């Protein structure tokens, strides 16, 4: 038999080697292992979030942002530097204060009735 014919036969043998191949199955208790994986995935998501937040660099950066936002809010507040504005009381505010005082004194009166 010539060498090329021999090679051809071997090629055909290899090409037909998968004829009638059976199905492979995963190992036993596949569903149990899958359940364990799903549970691990669920908990690892929270673990990854908490581990990210508690990283020193992330925590420090977060703290800096909060301090910066507070500083900005302090300097940009509308009544900063105008103490006169806070001293003046509008008539409506005065009326409200008077009313509240009356109510408060009524409550005091009601709560401490004379014997």
């Amino acid at each position, binding site marked *: 038999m010539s060498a090329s014919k021999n*090679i*051809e036969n*071997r*090629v055909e*043998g*290899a*090409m*037909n*080697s*998968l004829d*009638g*191949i*059976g*199905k*492979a*199955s*995963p*190992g036993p208790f*596949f*569903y149990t*292992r*899958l359940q364990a*994986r*799903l549970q691990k*995935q669920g908990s690892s998501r929270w673990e990854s979030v908490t581990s990210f937040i508690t990283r020193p660099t992330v925590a420090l950066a977060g703290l800096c942002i909060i301090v910066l936002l507070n500083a900005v809010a302090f300097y940009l507040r509308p009544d900063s530097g105008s103490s006169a504005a806070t001293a003046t009381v509008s008539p409506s505010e005065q009326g409200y204060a008077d009313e509240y005082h009356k109510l408060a004194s009524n409550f005091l009166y009601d709560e401490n009735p004379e014997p």
Partner: protein
Amino acid sequence: MNEWTLIERLQQGDQSAFKTIVETWQDMVYNTALGIVQQSEDAEDIAQEVFAQVYQSIRFFKGESKLSTWLYRITISKAMDHLRRAKRKKRFAFVRSLFGDEHEADLHPPDFHHPGVVLDNKENAAVLFKAIAKLPDNQRIAFTLHKIEGLSHQDIGSILNTTVSSVESLLHRAKANLRKELSGFYREPE
């Protein structure tokens, strides 16, 4: 119980429906993954990933295709991702080997023996699997689905979203490439 009832029950969070789906299709998913990645541990890992994805994204399944078709698509996508990662790892192992840090298993994986191949054909099948691993991705998928899963051209077409004639062309080219590769292999002095 029909397929659509199972899907609806799983969409409502029924665990027993999920168990039924896994037990019904686990062999199909595993066998397909094994045919593509040619590693039993990796195939099991991929099969688990596939069902984990099914569990998480079943609400997006609209029933436009059969559940098995959807499962095949997820399996193929995960298996190909795995192969791409393995290829990157192999490249990295090669670079490391240049510096003397050789990882034999990464550079020269052992022959793959599919558990479904009859004993007489084991050696020939191992050579064929080596040649299959060298095929372009789409030819490799089409050939695996046809030979290992025993799917018809029409089924392969619906999984790959292509026509029957395209599948036939893919299979024809795959076989031609395999014959060429195998001839080269047997011509080499052993």
